[in-house]
């Protein structure tokens, strides 16, 4: 099933796009697996996703840890730690 990926802040800038629709291979179980899979694309993706400790994620608009399962997700957002307020 297609999943909508969204990127924010420097993740978006490194990749050069704010989102995309992808078909996730079955080997991707967690958000961390997704990060590794995206990093393997190289270029800006490798730059954005090389260091998972700098990344945070939300699945269907709720914050999750990177070890959260992605099964059934419609929208997965990847971004740096938030800096609002």
């Amino acid at each position, binding site marked *: 099933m297609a999943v909508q990926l*969204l990127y*924010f*802040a*420097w993740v978006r800038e490194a990749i050069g796009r704010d989102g995309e629709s992808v078909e996730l291979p079955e080997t991707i179980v967690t958000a961390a697996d997704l990060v590794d899979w995206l990093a393997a694309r190289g270029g800006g993706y490798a730059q954005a996703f090389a260091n998972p400790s700098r990344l945070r994620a*939300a699945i269907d*608009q*709720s*914050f999750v840890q990177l070890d959260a399962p992605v099964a059934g997700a419609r*929208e997965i*957002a990847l*971004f*740096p*730690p*938030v*800096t*609002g*307020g």
Partner: protein
Amino acid sequence: MRQILVGEADFDSAALLGELESLGGGAVASFMGVVRGGDGLTAMRLDHYPAMTERALADIAVRAEARWSLLGLVIIHRVGELRPGERIVFVGTASAHRAAALDACHFLIDWLKTEAPFWKKESFADGESRWVAARCEDDQATARWGA
């Protein structure tokens, strides 16, 4: 009364305080964040995750309302391009007595810093720009309120 707003427009903090004062309680507390000048900062851009932001703020408001007896709660957070001295964020609370309003206001701004999907990018006079890094002090401030 609960008011949550995210947008580019400036807001009237005096009017917001007036609304909180009119709710019949004995206490109104507020926090306002302003773009800090200095170090050659010329502008700050605030990005957010629109589909998630209002929901995240509503979740934070629900937590505050469950924990303290509040008559009113206001969260306003601006996004887009802001200059030094401009207002970024307003948190206001009203309650019967001061402790609830003060504590809830402090909780709300601490949680906003770490649990709402906003990102700041600073631009400087020398043409440099950089994304603001998250501060571990902010995580500690949030953590002290418990889960």
